């Protein structure tokens, strides 16, 4: 697709998403109060969508794996375990609440992955991530099995994803993460380009592979951890949006990252609007919507990819 079409297309998608997010919902056309509430929710959706999409780009480049997505290093399992412990046992150290415990769990799982894969290359990271993720998931199942019926229900619903906003403080924190992650990853565009060619060629052109890999993965993990803590586990955005956008923007990260950010934000805002609207007053978990919408779209995208390298 031509370069010129990219910007208007993304701008159009973003505007459509914002319109959907602000002007539709169980409350109908909004008055000032409702508009402000929706604005917050849209801001949350944009932030989470941006974080997940650019983290997906980063992980796919560094791990040289087109199926990599932000949760591949076990971050979501750690966050879910943290949240589950908080929900089941009412833990809230330093009055972090559920998001704080989820964030702590995510940070813990990342450190664990780093420690396990110490000194080995990129492939070892994925392996370590899968293993750590499995172990933490087992921990999660243990918590689920000893929870009360209410605890079980609450943990499950939390995990499926929710972009509702009650106060501005966590939203501000989330957007602070957006600035750090988006800025950091965009400034690392050249490193990402080089790393996507493999660690050997990246080293050959002069990239400090160890440092670049670590900092990029840390940023990606921050993005995933922040999103899971704030909104639960939202699948597919980090996997599917980079693929979709690459078709339009090309693979160079200087363009891919901002494009993925816009697309990811728009996609999630649309998904969240559907989550609020479809079964109103019930709220479908937004993670379910992204999977149901993103899954088939991803399949269509893959089928259209008939060209394989000769």
């Amino acid at each position, binding site marked *: 697709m031509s370069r010129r079409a990219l910007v208007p297309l993304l701008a159009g998608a973003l505007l459509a998403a914002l319109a959907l997010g602000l002007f539709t919902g*169980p*409350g109908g056309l909004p008055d000032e109060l*409702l508009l402000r*509430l929706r604005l917050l929710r849209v801001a949350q959706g944009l932030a989470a969508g941006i974080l997940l999409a650019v983290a997906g780009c980063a992980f796919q480049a560094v791990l040289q794996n087109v199926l990599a997505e932000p949760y591949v290093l076990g971050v979501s399992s750690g966050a879910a375990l943290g949240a589950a412990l908080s929900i089941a046992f009412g833990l809230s150290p330093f009055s972090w609440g559920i998001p704080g415990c989820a964030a702590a769990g995510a940070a813990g799982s990342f450190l664990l992955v780093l420690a396990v894969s110490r000194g080995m290359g990129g492939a070892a990271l994925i392996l370590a991530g899968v293993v750590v993720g499995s172990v933490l998931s087992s921990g999660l199942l243990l918590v689920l099995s000893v929870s009360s019926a209410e605890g079980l229900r*609450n943990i499950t619903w939390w995990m499926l994803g*929710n972009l509702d906003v009650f*106060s*501005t403080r966590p939203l501000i924190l989330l957007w602070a993460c957006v600035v750090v992650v988006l800025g950091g990853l965009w400034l690392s565009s050249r490193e990402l380009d080089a790393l996507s060619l493999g660690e050997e060629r990246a080293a050959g052109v002069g990239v400090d592979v160890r440092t670049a890999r670590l900092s990029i993965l840390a940023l990606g993990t921050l993005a995933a951890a922040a999103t899971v803590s704030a909104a639960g586990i939202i699948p597919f955005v980090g996997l599917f949006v980079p693929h979709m956008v690459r078709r339009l923007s090309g693979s160079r990260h200087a363009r891919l990252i901002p494009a993925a950010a816009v697309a990811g934000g728009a996609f999630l805002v649309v998904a969240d609007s559907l989550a609020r609207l479809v079964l109103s*007053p019930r*709220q479908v978990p937004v993670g379910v919507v992204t999977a149901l919408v993103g899954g088939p779209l991803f399949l269509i995208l893959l089928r259209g990819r008939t060209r394989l390298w000769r």
Partner: protein
Amino acid sequence: MLRRLLVLAALGALVSCGGETESAGGGGERLVSLAPSTTELVFALGAGELLVGRSSADDYPPASGVPVVGDFGVPNAEALIRLKPTLVLLTGTEPDSSGRLLETLGLSTFTVRAGTLDELVRSTLDLGQRLGRREEAASLAARLREAARAAAARAEAVGGAAPRVYVEVWHDPLTTVGRTSFVADLIRACGGVNLFDGVETPYFATSSEAVIAADPDVIIVPGMNGVAPDVESRQGWGGIAAVRAGRVYSRIDPALLFRPGPRTVEGLKALSKILFPEAHP
């Protein structure tokens, strides 16, 4: 010789004690309860000594001393075999696997259905019959009916529109109750209207916006583990009728509202006062 007599006497005392316990009440029943609601009911009917096993979720009465034989609705096979119960109490919400297990073990079951207040009353009487505690059951049923009647009368006395009630079960995501939940029936009995009576499931997730749009008159947030979230300071909730009128109630034991049983009497009283605070007895 003397020692032998003493041993025989001791054995005789033991046997006769056992005999007494067995002959009092439902003919030597050994009860197992798999839910907090049925456990409370058993104790309220004065049949607590018949209970040989309870679920891990049962917390009232506290320190009952009854051993745990399983989780909520899910019995532990070995514990059941060891205890040899004669009757297992169910609520009708157990998973199929539990029913099959009990069938395999050849245990009799008794289902205490309590989806609504009427069902609770009827089940109380049935259980009382089954356990040989007819009087206690009748007394409890009467108290339940009286509480409901009093609540209805209070509503009538105050008059006016039925207050629309939002009950928040959990805050992330916002989880509330639908028409088929027990608490919705209680609200109806007290002369109120559950905010989302249009939804047919007992529990479901909703959005901040949906609650604001529905504009409840009363908000009840029982919380969990004694912790209730701060509802009034939520973005956009300041304009809700309930918040403006200061009718947000968080100091209520969730068991009183969500657990059908003897304490539903107190639940009805508390709910009635919440919905119609003006009328003073």
